[in-house]
């Protein structure tokens, strides 16, 4: 009996063992060789500071176990951490003192003697020059490895820190407290009696009444204007003035080659340049020009009006829009000239005037349409001519009746030919990708922009600025800004000069009680530093009352409301749990409905979340991280390609030299024979 059991069990165990062994061999995963994976983590500066000739040899040495993982100075502790994780060992402290950021070599051209010694030292061919000519470093290709510094006989190569561009800063993961407020106390989603929540449809109860109706007033100029020297990509702009120089109102403050020039919003003296906080998700400080306005406000404008505007060729109009420094004033701040030129290239036929402010508080576009409908319509005609659109549609929200009436009156006065379309008060109807369908009936494919279906959208405020620039020759220097919220004592719309510190705006609005949101009630960013300036794309400042302040976050119960409302078809709750667990942040998404790069940041998910989870902030963090990681990968890949090309060239030269020597030797031998 016992023997039977023992035999049976032994046979069974043996069979299972054989099965497992076979399965293990058959199903073994095809994993990358470890060298490839180590190499992928190295920064590809090819600097050789580790003692190996390039990143790949070092990776091979690590894989063979003959090199410690902490030799990579340019990669810093982040690389050591990543390597330790990959190889399942404890991270060791880095050998070199950690640098304070990326460095780039610079050759002092006054001292360079043109000796070409630094040229072969560069592992990625980033130095160009010829004997007895000045050498220069290709800044975009320099990996900051410092190998050239020692080779220079006159010590004219220095390493200088490069400013981290705004686009490579990552916003922090939101803390559980920084969430939206009690839904019953502040505007938010309402359950529509007849609709299931559907893709991109959140019915919002708005609080526009707070700031609606009053005539806009102009906010007094502050003592200092702070103008961030940044273009739309976050790359620094070069200032045209020196500290102490006087500028007139409307003088360009940047070099003429800038994609979007910046203009002095007031006459005054350039006080200097300093790093100053701006409104940005990553709480960044950027280089700003400080302008001290004085009393002499001249009326002289730097650009002559274009008359008649509609008879000008599109190129002239586009150039004027660029020169006037007009940026998308709906919030995106993308240069309008680029957008219109791109639209012209795509061959658009419809221009949609975007007057749908889907935010819950903002009324600046509505007010502008009520007060200056003639100018907006004229601006729309100019923009349509600049991009070649034949048809113009004005889209307004169902609730803003006066704006629609004003637009109709202005159209009738200007000779008609423009249609006014009313769209439902759904969030995010004002997003340019979402407005296209209700306005024109065309469907923008996922991930594409409206020009792909022949539509270009322009915000009402932008069109007003275009009209000012073309008809009056006035650059974009001020904007209409909504001040609203439960704590705002004087809610309404104000004309504010660009560069005005938000502290001055808030002082005009009243005493803040809770958070201050900049940009709107739904997508707005909480203000961290009140000295940050007003920019072109800033449409509102919301002062939350105590009742509107955020609720603490609660656990996700996977109710999937966020999935139902996401206009991009993402699964926010799953993405957030992955991101918070640190799974796959900065890596390519496992599937398209988990890809943070597809998130537009509309915050619909956050609006409907019953647990007040800061979904939009978490997704924004992952989006930033992924974008930055992609950029880094691309840069490393380029450096590796250049390094490999260089090595290939070196070996070819060596072969050729060898061949030549061989031929010579043979020739001598032949002669001797």
């Amino acid at each position, binding site marked *: 009996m016992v023997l039977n059991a023992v035999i049976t069990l032994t046979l069974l165990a043996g069979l299972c063992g054989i099965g497992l062994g076979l399965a293990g061999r058959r199903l073994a995963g095809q994993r990358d060789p470890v060298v490839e994976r180590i190499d992928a983590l190295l920064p590809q500066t090819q600097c050789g500071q580790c003692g190996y000739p390039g990143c790949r040899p070092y990776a091979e040495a690590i894989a063979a176990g003959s090199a410690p993982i902490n030799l990579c100075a340019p990669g810093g502790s982040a690389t050591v951490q990543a390597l330790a994780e990959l190889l399942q060992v404890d991270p060791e402290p880095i050998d070199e003192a950690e640098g304070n950021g990326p460095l780039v070599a610079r050759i002092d051209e006054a001292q360079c003697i043109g000796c070409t010694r630094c040229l072969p030292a560069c592992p990625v061919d980033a130095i160009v020059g010829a004997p007895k000519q000045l050498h220069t470093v290709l800044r975009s290709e320099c990996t900051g490895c410092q190998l050239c510094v020692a080779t220079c006989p006159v010590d004219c190569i220095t390493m200088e820190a490069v400013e981290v561009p705004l686009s490579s800063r990552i916003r922090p993961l939101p803390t559980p407290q920084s969430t939206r407020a009690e839904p019953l106390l502040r505007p938010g989603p309402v359950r529509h009696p007849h609709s299931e929540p559907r893709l991109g449809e959140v019915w919002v109860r708005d609080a526009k009444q707070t700031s609606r109706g009053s005539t806009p007033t102009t906010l007094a100029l502050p003592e200092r204007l702070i103008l961030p020297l940044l273009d739309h990509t976050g790359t620094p702009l070069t200032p045209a003035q020196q500290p102490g120089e006087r500028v007139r109102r409307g003088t360009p403050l940047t070099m003429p080659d800038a994609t979007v020039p910046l203009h002095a919003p007031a006459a005054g003296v350039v006080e200097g340049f300093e790093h100053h906080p701006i409104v940005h998700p990553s709480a960044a400080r950027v280089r700003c020009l400080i302008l001290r306005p004085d009393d002499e406000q001249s009326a002289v404008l730097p650009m002559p009006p274009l008359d008649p505007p509609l008879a000008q060729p599109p190129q002239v109009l586009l150039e004027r829009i660029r020169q006037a420094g007009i940026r998308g004033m709906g919030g995106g701040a993308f240069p309008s000239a680029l957008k219109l030129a791109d639209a012209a290239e795509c061959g658009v036929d419809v221009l949609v005037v975007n007057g749908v402010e889907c935010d819950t508080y903002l009324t600046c576009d509505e007010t502008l349409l009520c007060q200056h409908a003639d100018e907006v319509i004229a601006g729309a005609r100019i923009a349509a001519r600049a991009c070649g659109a034949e048809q113009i549609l004005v889209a307004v929200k169902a609730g803003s009746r006066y704006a629609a009436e004003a637009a109709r009156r202005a159209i009738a006065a200007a000779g008609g030919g423009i249609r006014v379309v009313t769209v439902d008060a759904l969030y995010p109807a004002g997003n340019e990708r979402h407005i296209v369908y209700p306005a024109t009936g065309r469907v923008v494919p996922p991930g594409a922009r409206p020009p792909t279906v022949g539509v270009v959208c322009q915000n009402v405020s932008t069109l007003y600025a275009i009209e000012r620039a073309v008809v009056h020759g006035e650059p974009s220097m001020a904007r209409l800004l909504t001040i609203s919220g439960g704590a705002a004592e004087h809610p309404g719309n104000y004309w504010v000069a660009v560069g005005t510190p938000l502290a001055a705006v808030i002082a005009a609005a009243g005493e803040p009680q809770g958070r201050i949101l900049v940009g709107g009630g739904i997508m707005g960013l909480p203000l961290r530093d009140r000295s940050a300036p007003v920019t072109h794309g800033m449409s509102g400042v919301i002062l939350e009352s105590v009742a509107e302040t955020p609720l603490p976050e*609660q656990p996700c119960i996977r109710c999937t409301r966020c999935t139902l409302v996401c206009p991009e078809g993402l699964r926010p709750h*799953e993405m957030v749990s992955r991101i918070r667990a640190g799974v796959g942040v900065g890596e390519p998404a496992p599937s398209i409905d988990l890809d943070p790069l597809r998130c537009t940041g509309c915050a619909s998910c956050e609006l409907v979340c019953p647990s007040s989870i800061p979904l939009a902030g978490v997704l924004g963090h992952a989006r930033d991280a992924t974008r930055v990681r992609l950029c880094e990968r691309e840069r490393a890949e380029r450096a590796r390609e250049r390094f490999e090309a260089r090595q290939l060239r070196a070996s070819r030269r060596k072969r050729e030299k060898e061949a030549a020597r061989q031929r010579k030797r043979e020739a001598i031998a032949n002669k001797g024979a």
Partner: protein
Amino acid sequence: MGEVLLALTPAAAVSIWLFGVGVALNIATVLVAATLVEAVAVRARGGSVRAALGDGSVLVTALIIGLCLPPLLPWWIPALAGALAVLLGKQVYGGLGQNVFNPAIVGYVAVVLAFPQATGMWPAPDPTLGAVISNGEAWRYFLSGELTPLADALTHATPLDRLATDGLAALLAHEAAVPGLAATGAWTWLGLAFLLGGIGLVARRTIDWRLPSGVLIGTAATAALFAVVTDGAAVGFHLLAGATLMVAFFIATDPVTAPVESRARWLYAAGIGVVAMVIRELGGHPDGFAFAILMMNATAPLLDYWVRRSWRGTADS
């Protein structure tokens, strides 16, 4: 959570009306135990006790367990159910939103398996019960666990017990003896009370209508199949008896333990009905919904994955 509590009120009221003070004692005991364990566990995990208790999820769990358990029990059984529900059903996974299995059902199943005799003892549903088993006797049993002969005599087989042990013929004979109502007798009122609350939740869009529909369809289809093939009980009986309506509207609809894709939700809900019917008709346990819920909870992530892969073409790696 507030809306779910509100929707459970009619069922709680009917239950107390039918079974007397014991139901209220059960609910209160489960609530006290669950709250204590929740507070201790959340504190141990370093969370905010106030936030954890403030969301009302413990209250819903307590109410569901209290309504699942028979009305006459010694206090340690509901207390254990509440404690295990919170501890093993929820907190060990990381708290609300992280659990795989429905906490209330985990607690219920634990005590059903641990105390089969006590938890299998249901008195006849009768509004006049209070007159037969006095509140004093109910209290005494609740505190000491000693059965008085009177209560013992009153203990009666539920329609499902009858079906499981004696077969359909006995059930039908019993129906003939209790005219006026369906075979489920006064239990029907309880079922209808759950239905009322559930319809309210569906109308308010608090719960996804697919889940209750799926459970009812799965139950009805399987019951119909059994009625034809093995001569099982009627479809209407299965829909009204036992926990069918409660599970359909209040337990299968828990978003945490259900799948998220709509098609996966249909499969999940129908699966609950099918498994429960198979256990009812073929298994030894009188009701199979608790086990069906746990089984389908375990498959929920797989259903999501499978639906995404085969219908949406997007699967996670």
